[in-house]
């Protein structure tokens, strides 16, 4: 796989993609598809869904690459498109999400437990077990690093709802992690 090492090379590649050069598009695809596939998997339940998201995202990337003006890294720009595509795919579900008013929620505060390192595939399975709404908010906050105010704007919900949904998602993830670590402890003692 051809590496994209320097800014100048990146600029040349982007320029070639703007000209609809198939070879340049292939190089870009080869460089980013594996990483972006994992991003897509985090927002979906099955490999089919993830592939659909990835495919749709790359089409948008090539159709809109002329709008990329190097004010951010290409990596970040591509990832944003993948995430937005995933959100669009899940939009119908997100619209139907039962968004309760934060005043009515009496969530238990979640202890900030520390956990041993797990590989990403185990963690991916945990994320995919969450319901779609929790899955999206958990990804946006815990992994992408968005603030609750930004998430609220992206999803068209209140900040309080975002916090509440995240708290519940985190609690579920925590339980799954504790279960997983219990299994590891049992196996180790056995």
């Amino acid at each position, binding site marked *: 796989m051809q590496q994209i090492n320097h800014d100048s090379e990146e600029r040349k590649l982007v320029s070639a993609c703007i000209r609809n050069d198939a070879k340049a598009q292939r190089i870009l695809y080869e460089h980013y598809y594996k990483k972006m596939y994992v991003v897509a998997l*985090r927002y979906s339940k099955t490999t089919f869904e993830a592939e659909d998201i990835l495919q749709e995202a790359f089409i948008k990337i090539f159709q809109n690459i002329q709008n990329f003006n190097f004010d951010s890294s290409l990596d970040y720009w591509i990832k944003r498109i993948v995430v937005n595509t995933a959100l669009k795919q899940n939009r119908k579900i997100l619209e139907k999400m039962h968004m309760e008013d934060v005043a009515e929620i009496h969530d238990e505060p979640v202890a900030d437990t520390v*956990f041993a390192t*797990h590989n990403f595939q185990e963690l991916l399975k945990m994320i995919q077990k969450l319901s779609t709404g929790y899955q999206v908010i958990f990804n946006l906050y815990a992994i992408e*690093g968005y603030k609750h105010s930004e998430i609220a704007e992206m999803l068209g919900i209140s900040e309080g709802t975002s916090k509440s949904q995240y708290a519940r998602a985190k609690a579920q993830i925590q339980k799954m992690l504790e279960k997983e670590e219990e299994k590891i402890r049992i196996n180790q003692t056995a």
Partner: protein
Amino acid sequence: MKPQDKNIEDLFRSAFENASLEPPRKEEMWTHIQSAVQKPPVSLWRTKRFRVSSIAASIALLIGLLYYSYQDNAVSSADKKSNESVVSSPSVENQASLDEQALTEKNTLLKKGNENELKTEKNNKVEKKQDFESDGKSDRNDNDIVLKSKSAKSNSNDVLKDEFENESELSALLENIDNPTTPKDEKTLAKTYLEVKEIISIANPKIIVPFALDKQPVLQLVKVAPVVLQTDKDEKAENEWWIGFTGFYNHYTPNITVTSPDLPTSLLKFSTTRNFTDCTNVAKAIRDDIQVSPSISVGIDIGKLVGKNWFFRSGISFTNFRYSFNSPILEKPSASSAQSRAIRYENVTSNTTSQIVIPVQFGYQSFSKSNLLDWFVAGGFTSDILLNNSLTPTYSEVTYDFGTYKSLNISFTGSAGVLYHVTPKFSTLLELNYRRTTSSVYDSPNLTSQPHWIGVGLGARLKF
């Protein structure tokens, strides 16, 4: 606490920072991306404005051609009438010559029964025949061209048969008629001896037209006959355009070939509102288990005769067709639901298409002597313009990706049929038609479809 222990956010962030995985269908995805991104330039025909303008221009052109042809025929008729008036009018211009001829010409009229009543008016005098060719075949001395009354037969040969009692004379004359040796300019000569309307009257004895008399000798019937026959052709040319209406009942075959792998299929997507999966092979269902509904098309047909038996035709019609297939899906129980086992749902998907079809065909039509039944065959192409195509599954959580149905498709077409002439200008028809697209109607990496239709149609035509 171990150094590597982290809180949840740190744990997930660091785990996914450089995470990568190989998707199972990397190359297939690339093919789809390329086909979407590297699309050929949009053809003008894909734009609605161009399509509407083209159809409007074609209709305007057709109307223009029809109007031009009508004008042309009107001029020809006017010319014919003026020619008739140039040729001596029996009642006015030749009155003087009539009187003169009355003394020198011998008028003999043959009478055959009640059907052959003679006109005894002053204008209806028979001219003397004269040989123009001394070929020995037609050296009649009799001065006879008989004017038939309304009840006489219309066929010119039958007219001749009525006149000759001598079979051998008749045979000789008929042979000459079938193989006329008359040079072209004799046609002109014939016209100088007989008015056009007189010639018509021999071919159509229902029309009674007085004869002109002049000093010129009479032509033999054998010389007149080719002119008479020519008049038949002229009459046919007057009805060389037609406009008609036809309705077809078609058997439609989608003829789908799935080109992508059966499993996992690229044809099917699920939304995640419910936990559906494909529990059967949808590609197989599409390929082997399609249920087709009958297709109906109705339209207008316009045609023109070109030459003796050949014709050109076009028109416009509306066609609607539909097929469906059942590809059951499975709903797996989700963690939060009370459902304990997977449930299978029958999922019938229907594909409905409507289009405008504009044919262009060339064909051959018989013209029988009976003028009652004729047959025709034709072949050509159609432009199939898409109006609407929709793929509708039972469950909205399921979507199928067949690709884009092309706005314009070209098809081969062949027809054969029978015409029943109710009147000389109005006919009904029964037609068999076959139509097949020349290429796939879908722009898709997953499947191709080259449908064909076999139809039976009933219609009517008006000639003008």
